[in-house]
């Protein structure tokens, strides 16, 4: 009898009907390709951080130069080589944003060192604070730390140079962000040239193949045979050195790497059956290129572009370095670093800010590119 109670009674169960249609029903909402990609990109923390950094740098490049009253070319021989000073942060001495110079001197006696300090800092005794680290003894020399309040010494107590000034007394904050503008302009230019000329040239060359391909590749070989530098120098014969000649030089040769990569991949893809299927349906050539071939090389396009961007930014810096690029008083991150590295040991702040920004741009582009490549690939969909 007890057993019977444990028996499952059929009436107590209710079969759940699952039709075949319900089984295949998707519980998630329908998303477009871009929405889908955006969701995947958001999951990638590195890419989002990279994106935010780029947005911040972009924002500062646009608005930074207007945030104070200095211009990028205004010179003042009284305020050369002034270290950075920022409101609110000036009392935190270890940050180095207090507008003071600190140096530890060694010598025979403390008194002698005080004399020496006046000479080293080229300033008056009232602006110097001294802190004796070690008195002179028989065995050891005296050690004194001197701190010079440059802003007071120069009579500019009310001014704040956030990134300091350079050898000619120009405000580095303004110059750095104007320089970032130039570097970002070069980055966008290189990316656009790559994506427009490189992709179309490579795609057309591979897709049509045969004689077209043959001629187009010979043209590329001729172009690649002319060194970039020669192109720029020839350009300067006609134009002034500056942003225009860099732009033209990049336009002439910057897209060749991309064109070759795209050609190789389109050659591989164009005989795939999905392309043939599209042709039997009557697709036009441009439709096949834009709908079938290019989407399948997006990952490559992005990665390649992101490789080109640092290259282009450095190309500009290099040209500026040898005097063929931007001419003073214009500034780019490249010229700023070039100017600063000559006095790196005495005025390190001049080098730090542009270097940090150019490094951030590179790293952010690379991390973002990595995230984008994964996000744009539907195979990564979970």
């Amino acid at each position: 009898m007890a057993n019977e109670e444990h028996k499952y009674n059929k009436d107590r169960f209710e079969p759940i009907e699952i039709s075949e249609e319900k089984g295949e029903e998707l519980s998630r909402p329908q998303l477009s390709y871009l929405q889908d990609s955006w969701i995947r990109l958001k999951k990638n923390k590195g890419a989002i951080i990279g994106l935010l950094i780029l947005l911040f740098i972009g924002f500062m490049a646009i608005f930074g130069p207007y945030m104070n009253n200095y211009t990028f070319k205004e010179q003042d021989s009284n305020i050369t080589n002034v270290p950075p000073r920022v409101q609110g942060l000036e009392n935190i001495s270890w940050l180095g944003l207090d507008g003071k110079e600190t140096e530890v001197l060694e010598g025979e006696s403390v008194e002698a060192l005080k004399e020496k300090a006046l000479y080293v800092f080229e300033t008056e005794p009232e602006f110097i604070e001294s802190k004796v680290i070690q008195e002179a003894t028989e065995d050891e020399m005296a050690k004194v730390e001197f701190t010079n309040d440059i802003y007071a010494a120069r009579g500019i107590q009310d001014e704040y140079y956030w990134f300091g000034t350079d050898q000619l007394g120009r405000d580095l904050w303004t110059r750095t962000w104007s320089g970032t503008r130039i570097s970002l302009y070069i980055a966008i230019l290189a990316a656009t040239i790559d994506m427009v000329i490189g992709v179309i040239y490579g795609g057309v060359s591979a897709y049509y193949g045969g004689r077209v391909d043959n001629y187009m590749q010979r043209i590329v070989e001729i172009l690649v045979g002319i060194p970039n530098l020669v192109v720029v120098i020839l350009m300067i014969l006609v134009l002034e050195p500056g942003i225009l000649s860099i732009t033209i030089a990049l336009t002439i040769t910057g897209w060749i790497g991309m064109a070759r990569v795209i050609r190789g991949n389109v050659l591989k893809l164009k005989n795939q059956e999905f392309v043939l299927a599209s042709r039997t349906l009557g697709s036009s050539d441009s439709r096949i290129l834009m709908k079938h071939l290019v989407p399948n090389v997006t990952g490559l396009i992005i990665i390649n572009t992101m490789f080109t961007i640092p290259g282009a930014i450095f190309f500009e810096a290099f040209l500026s370095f040898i005097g063929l690029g931007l001419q003073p008083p214009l500034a780019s991150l490249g010229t700023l670093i070039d100017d600063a590295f000559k006095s790196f040991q005495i005025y390190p702040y001049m080098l730090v800010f542009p270097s940090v920004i150019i490094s951030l741009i590179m790293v952010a582009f690379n991390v973002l590119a990595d995230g984008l490549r994964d996000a744009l690939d539907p195979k990564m969909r979970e």
Partner: protein
Amino acid sequence: MSQSQEKLLEIKGLKQHFQSGRNNVVKAVDGLTFDIYKGETFGLVGESGCGKSTTGRTIIRLYDATDGEVLFDGENVHGKKNKSEMKKFNRKMQMIFQDPYASLNPRMKVMDTIAEGLDIHGLVKDQKERQKKVEDLLETVGLNKEHANRYPHEFSGGQRQRIGIARALAVDPDFIIADEPISALDVSIQAQVVNLMRKLQREQGLTYLFIAHDLSMVKYISDRIGVMYFGKLVELADSDELYKNPLHPYTQSLLSAIPLPDPDYERNRQRKNYDPTQHDTSEEPEFREIKPGHWILCTTKELEQYKKQLK
């Protein structure tokens, strides 16, 4: 299977030669002549590399023929055509591809893949109608309408092949070239896909050119079979006739290779080797009708011989 004797496709002396290197010509297809009647399934068999797929691709004009004519409904396919004529032709003739993994664009959703033909030919007025049409097609090929928003990599091989069939059907074709549609699938799925194709043929009155190398499957689906060897048709007959009276030594060799799940038969099965040098070389062999509907590639001397065999 019902078949009228109305010719849908006439192929006359079709040649497709590829230039490979300076002095080397590969004769992939070398003078094919056959007709395909409305509503039938024409099977094309042969060993790998004998030009079956090239024949299919040349007929649909993926390649431009070196020589010869393809008449579809009396109109020359390879003649000069403007865009709108070409488009009209594209709607009538479609193709199903061999590799279900390579034949779908991995970056396009199933919806867009199937609707591609609809978009190109402007067959739907708005988004809603497009979706409706795609969902109908998915159901026709035995898939679920919920599948429309997925990407190809989310499907199995058999399902992908069904998507490929749905894409071909989207433009309402009369004639479908199936280029080894089942050879990349496993056996249980092969039967499903072949049965789906037969069902579609019954319902929509399609005509198939079925290219394959699996003889048992070809016999199952085809009304007539053509056997190809090195770019040439060597024998053409109704499928029953071909299996009963294989005359050409190559056909005999092919048929002798079919295994049967019968131990007694298998123990005594003799494989026949085909030796191309055994043929009479006194004159250029021609494609001749040895009895109504049964064609064979032979010289006059061989014809007599084959006739004796036929009895």
